[in-house]
C-alpha cells in the first residue's frame, strides 16, 4: 500500500502541472495589459497623437506622389533628403515621426533619399572606422569622398492655436510640408493638413 502511494505521488504531480499548461502563446501578468489596434482612432487627449501622425503622413505622401517633380525624381533616380518636421507648438511631441513615416512611404514607391541631420554622425563615424582604424582590408573599405548630395530637401512644421473656455478646449493644428530644390531654393511642392480637436468637460 505504501509503495502504491509513492508511485501515485509523482503521477498526480505531473497531472496537476500539465493542467496549468495553456495552448495560448501568451504570458499574462496581472496588470490587464493587452494589445490594441495601432490604426485605431486615438482620442485620449487633444494633444497630437498616433492618428494625427498616421493621417498626416498618409496625406502628405499621397499629395507628393501626385507631383510631377517627385515622379521625375523617381524616374531619374534623383536623391532627396529631409530636415525633421519642426515642432512650433507648445507641447512636446516628436514631430520627426512624421518625417520618418513620409520618407518610409516614399521609399516604398521608389524614392531614394540620403541621410542627414542626427544620422550623419553615425555615417561619418563608420567611414572613419573603416578608413582610419587600420582594422579593415583596404580593398573592402567604403571610400571617403563618395557620398552623394541630394537635389531636393523635404521640410515642414507643426503649429497650433489653443483656445480654452470654462467647459471647452479647442486645439487647431496646421501641419505644413514643402519640397525644396536645394540648388535654387525654389519650393517645388507644398501642402498642409489641418486638424481640429475639441475637448468638452
Amino acid at each position: 500500500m505504501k509503495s502504491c502511494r509513492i508511485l501515485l505521488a509523482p503521477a498526480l504531480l505531473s497531472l496537476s502541472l500539465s493542467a496549468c499548461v495553456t495552448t495560448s502563446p501568451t504570458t499574462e501578468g496581472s496588470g490587464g495589459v493587452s494589445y490594441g489596434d495601432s490604426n485605431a482612432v486615438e482620442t485620449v487627449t487633444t494633444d497630437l497623437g498616433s492618428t494625427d501622425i498616421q493621417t498626416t503622413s498618409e496625406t502628405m505622401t499621397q499629395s507628393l506622389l501626385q507631383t510631377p517633380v517627385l515622379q521625375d525624381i523617381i524616374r531619374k533616380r534623383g536623391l532627396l533628403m529631409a530636415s525633421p518636421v519642426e515642432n512650433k507648438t507648445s507641447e512636446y511631441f516628436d514631430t520627426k515621426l512624421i518625417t520618418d513615416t513620409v520618407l518610409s512611404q516614399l521609399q516604398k514607391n521608389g524614392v531614394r533619399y540620403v541621410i542627414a541631420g542626427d544620422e550623419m554622425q553615425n555615417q561619418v563615424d563608420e567611414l572613419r572606422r573603416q578608413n582610419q582604424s587600420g582594422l579593415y582590408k583596404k580593398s573592402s573599405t567604403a571610400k571617403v569622398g563618395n557620398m552623394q548630395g541630394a537635389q531636393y530637401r523635404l521640410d515642414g512644421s507643426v503649429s497650433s492655436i489653443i483656445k480654452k473656455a470654462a467647459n471647452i478646449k479647442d486645439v487647431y493644428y496646421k501641419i505644413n510640408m514643402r519640397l525644396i530644390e536645394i540648388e535654387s531654393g525654389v519650393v517645388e511642392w507644398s501642402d498642409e493638413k489641418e486638424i481640429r480637436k475639441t475637448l468638452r468637460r
Partner: protein
Amino acid sequence: MKRLAVIAVFGLACLGGVAPAQGADGGTIASKVGELGRMEYLKVSDMKAVRRDNLLRVQITVTNSSSDNQQLYYRFLWLDSDGFSVWNEGPWKPEIIYGKQDKIISVTAPTFKAADFKLEVQSPNNSTSGPHSGSTADSSPYR
C-alpha cells in the same frame, strides 16, 4: 438587386482614353464597401475611381439621411489587380458628416501598385446590427 452605381473609370493618361475599372469582384458599391455594423443614417451613395498619372484616385460621396451630425470612421485598403494587398492597412480616419449632408471624400492611392481598393466604414452611433451585431465596442476603430 440594386444596379451598379459605381462609375469606376481608369483614365489612360498616355492614350488620353478611358477604360472601365476591373474590380476584383465586380463593381457595385456594396462589393467595394465593408461596413462594420449596419449604418442606419450614413450611406456611401456614390463612388468613382480613376487612374491618373499612374495613381488610382477614388472619390466617394457619403450621405447622411439624419438631421443630426454623424461620426464616420473609414479607411481604404489598396489591392493589386489580383486582389492582394499592396500597402499596409491604413489608419482609420474620423470624419464628421453634418445633418443631411452629402460629403465628398477624395483619396489617392499611396502606391503606384494599387489597381483596386476596398473601403471599410464604421459609424459608432449607427452600429446597432449587422455582421458585428451586439459587439459595437469591439468592432469600433474608436479608442
